[in-house]
């Protein structure tokens, strides 16, 4: 207890006024002359005492009023040991990434977070976040301890990959709206793989103080995992020795050299078991062939039989779909045989090509139903029978995909089928002696995807283009351009389907692409992309997205999508099933999906294998991140709030409230006395 403005206590001298008025002045009564006292008598003692008592109550009220007013100006305060407010915002972030499933890391982290929350000053605001595959904001900055505790207890370990860079961005964003100091408590195993390559991504704003609470008990804890699995998503023929095999990579993090037993499990049955020598902290490859699977979707897994301290990452799942080879409709001009030859050869040479090419000329397409084909290729075919053109348009609108190649038969101002535009110009580079090469390639585009393109632009820069049509790229995605900027490969969404437009031909007359090895990869990727086989099987990583439908706002009859998660639950509501365009695969396991175009898929989802590397951040990096205030030493939860323990809390408001009550009571009492006097007169 103290006073913030003790000099105002000098005002207590004013208490002498009511003392004088009530206790001293009443004894100095001015004598009042009267003609005679013969009719007067001395007042009885009881009556005088009663009056005196009434005045003493008024005296007490007036004294209390003066005392309280002076006290309020002196601004009394108390120091609250708990329940006060430090003015800081406590940001409690609990790492619930996949690696936190190891041992008791998650349980320990949650317990420590709850301890910190319990030691939080009552007046401080706090916010709970969960750092998994995405940073989940579970509460707003609030002071309700029960709600904060409930939010913290509701956090469960996820299968996502944590990123401290995302945490840094979130805190920087939060600091723009919260101007009070932020105490960031991060409860994590401090995985090294969670740290971004650029340290600037994790730098916190000036008003944020980071306190790292590491729960990694043993930094040298060994862990083996199935790092990757290479298996065909589509398998037409299990006896095809080229494709019917599974290759898995077993990796060890901080492990000694060991012999591990690896099994291939298909639909719950172990098909094969291999022993592999895994070097210390290294990797080993194990092959399973042939892959004998039945028709339909086969849920497969490669497992390590020897369990370690982190058994959750000892298996990698994937889906293999066995089906008959799909047919591809290749429509070419009447005199064009080269494109069929090159495209068919490339499609057959593709490692995972599960397609059979059916080549017909444009004049023969009148009674062809495109819906029976995986996708359609229009090679140098600007005009087709109207009935085929109509059925092809319906095919695309319902989700079918078409590749259009503009060969030498293309003329200016000719309408392009399905493209809603015509050829604006023709660039005949060969005739002009200005042969173009492919300048820009978007390797993130599925049909052009390459992991490491290299200096020659993945082989695309060696391709010479002699002839290219110029089209309007409006509302289209340009995946590749020539060196003069002319779009070479474009994609446009039409209904539920896609139309890929190659502004040059598929033969070797308009370009020499078919003569380059990159053409095979291009055809392979394009075939898988347009057939959708990439979407319906195989494996994905946790927190990747699946495209459920082409448009966010579908037109016409709306087809529902359906998603069944690994637990057999439907995570999408009915309204979401009608409108959702993408879906995040947030958990590890097998997802069953029915797309808007009616195709079914089963996808195996695995956690990011970076989570299997349990090595924590070096201590110097932790110190650098948390700054010099924490010193890199773990702090106890009680010590975290030592600086805010005895905060002065002003009481002037309550004192003024009491003074107001005393003022009202004094007014009422004094008024009652004056009322009596008026009656007397």
């Amino acid at each position, binding site marked *: 207890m103290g006073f913030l403005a003790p000099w105002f206590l000098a005002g207590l001298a004013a208490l002498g006024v009511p003392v004088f008025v009530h206790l001293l002045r009443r004894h100095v*009564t*001015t*004598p*009042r*002359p*009267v*003609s*005679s*006292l*013969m*009719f*007067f*008598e*001395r*007042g*009885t003692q009881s*009556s*005088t005492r009663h*009056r005196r008592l009434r005045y003493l109550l008024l005296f007490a009220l007036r004294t209390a009023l003066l005392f309280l007013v002076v006290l309020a100006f002196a601004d009394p305060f108390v120091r609250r040991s708990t329940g006060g407010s430090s003015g800081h915002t406590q940001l409690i972030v609990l790492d619930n990434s996949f690696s936190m499933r190891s041992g008791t890391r998650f349980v320990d982290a949650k317990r420590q977070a709850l301890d910190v929350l319990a030691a939080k000053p009552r007046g401080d605001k706090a916010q709970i976040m969960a750092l998994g595959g995405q940073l989940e904001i579970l509460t707003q900055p609030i002071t309700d301890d029960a709600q904060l505790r409930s939010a913290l207890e509701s956090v469960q370990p996820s299968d996502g990959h944590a990123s401290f860079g995302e945490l840094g961005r979130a805190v920087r964003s939060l600091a723009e709206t919260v101007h009070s100091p932020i105490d960031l408590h991060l409860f994590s195993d401090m995985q090294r793989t969670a740290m971004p390559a650029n340290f600037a991504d994790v730098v916190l704003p000036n008003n944020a103080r980071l306190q790292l609470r590491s729960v990694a008990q043993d930094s040298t804890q060994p862990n083996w995992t199935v790092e990757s699995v290479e298996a065909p998503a589509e398998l037409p023929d299990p006896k095809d020795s080229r494709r019917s095999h599974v290759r898995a990579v077993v990796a060890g993090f901080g492990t000694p050299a060991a012999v591990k037993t690896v099994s291939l499990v298909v639909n719950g049955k172990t098909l094969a078991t291999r022993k592999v020598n895994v070097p210390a902290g290294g990797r080993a490859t194990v092959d399973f062939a042939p892959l004998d699977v039945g028709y339909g979707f086969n849920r497969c897994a490669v497992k390590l039989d020897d369990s370690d301290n982190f058994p959750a990452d000892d298996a990698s799942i994937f889906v293999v779909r066995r089906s008959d080879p799909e047919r591809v409709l290749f429509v070419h001009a009447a005199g064009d045989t080269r494109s069929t030859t090159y495209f068919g050869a490339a499609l057959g040479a593709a490692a995972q090509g599960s397609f059979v090419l059916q080549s017909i000329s444009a004049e023969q397409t009148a009674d062809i139903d495109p819906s029976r084909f995986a996708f359609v290729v229009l090679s140098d075919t600007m005009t087709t029978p109207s009935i085929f053109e109509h059925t092809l348009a319906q095919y695309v609108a319902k989700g079918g995909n078409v590749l259009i190649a503009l060969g030498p038969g293309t003329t200016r101002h000719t309408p392009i089928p399905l493209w809603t535009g015509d050829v604006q110009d023709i660039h005949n580079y060969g005739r002009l002696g200005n042969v173009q090469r492919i300048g820009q390639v978007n390797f993130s585009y599925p049909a052009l995807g390459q992991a490491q393109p290299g200096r020659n632009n993945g082989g695309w820069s060696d391709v010479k283009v002699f002839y290219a049509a110029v089209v309007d790229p409006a509302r289209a995605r340009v995946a590749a351009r020539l060196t003069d900027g002319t779009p070479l490969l474009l994609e446009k969404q039409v209904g539920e389907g896609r139309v890929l437009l190659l502004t040059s031909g598929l033969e070797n007359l308009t370009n020499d692409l078919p003569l380059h090895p990159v053409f095979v990869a291009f055809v392979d990727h394009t075939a898988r992309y347009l057939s959708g086989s990439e979407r319906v099987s195989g494996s994905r990583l946790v927190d990747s997205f699946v495209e459920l439908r082409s448009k966010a706002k579908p037109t016409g009859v709306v087809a529902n999508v359906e998603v069944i998660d690994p637990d057999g639950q439907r995570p999408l509501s009915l309204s979401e099933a009608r409108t959702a365009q993408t879906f995040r695969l947030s958990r590890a396991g097998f997802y069953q999906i029915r797309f808007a175009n009616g195709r079914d898929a089963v996808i195996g989802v695995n956690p990011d294998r970076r989570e299997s590397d349990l090595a924590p951040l070096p201590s110097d990096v932790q110190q650098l991140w948390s700054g010099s205030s924490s010193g890199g030493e773990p702090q106890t939860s009680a010590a975290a709030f030592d600086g805010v323990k005895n905060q002065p809390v002003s009481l002037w408001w309550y004192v003024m409230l009491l003074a107001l009550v005393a003022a009202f009571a004094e007014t009422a009492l004094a008024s009652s006395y004056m009322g009596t*006097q008026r009656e*007397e*007169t």
Partner: protein
Amino acid sequence: MQRFLDPVVLAGISSLDLLAKTVVDGFVAGLHRSPDFGFSQEFAEYRAYTPGDDLRHVDWNLFARTERCYLKRYRGENNSQLTVLLDASNSMQYTSGPPNKMDYARFLSASMFYLAIHNQRDAAGLIVFDDEVRDYIRPSTRQGQLARLFAGLEHATPHARTDFAKPLQHFQNALHRRGIAIVVSDFYENPETIVNNIAPLRFRGNEVILFHILDPQEIRPALRGSALLVDLETDQKLEVIPEYTRTSYRNKIDTHIEQLRSRARGAGMDYQLLVTDQPLDLALREYLTLRQAGN
């Protein structure tokens, strides 16, 4: 017209002469003219001169015609003799607002004297007393009597305490003719004692009027709290409380007034309570009524 008789207005008039003239003229002008007035101007009878008679009353016209000496007597020469006994004790200076009781008594007495001498041609005298006789002006109708009476009133200052025994004894010794005796006092004494002391005046054929002068605060005192009261005559102090003044005191003063009235009337005296905030016409009317009754 009433405003001229208002004591508050009269208190602003410094001259008793002017004050009395104002009061009486205002009072008389408000009365209906009566045939009884003017009797003192009317001839009554002739009486043969006897030695010792005042030669001023001889009808020299008749003596000239008849050589007989007769005295001309008027009815007015038998007028009353007015004597005012003015209490000048300390208690008479009490006031709760102008005028105080002493001033009110002065106004009253001056008005009586003016009415008696100037209008009625009565002899008028004054006795100022407290516990002793402080001043005595013999009743007379001589020239300058009114001025003497007014001077006597001016010099009458409150002093000492009231004692009716001695002044009345002196009055009885000095009174040779019957007339009207007016006692002006606040009568802070036992009613029985007062009446016993004043009653002998009545035995000599005098008409006695008691004008009881009181301040409004003496009848209905208002105390806002317990107060220390000081007796103006004895300097005795007493602490009293408002509850007492609202109940017991009022009963006592009412009883005192009633007893004084009843005992005075029982002794053949007239009694009139005059409060200092009342006009003076009540007292004048009382005097004239008694004057007409037979004096």
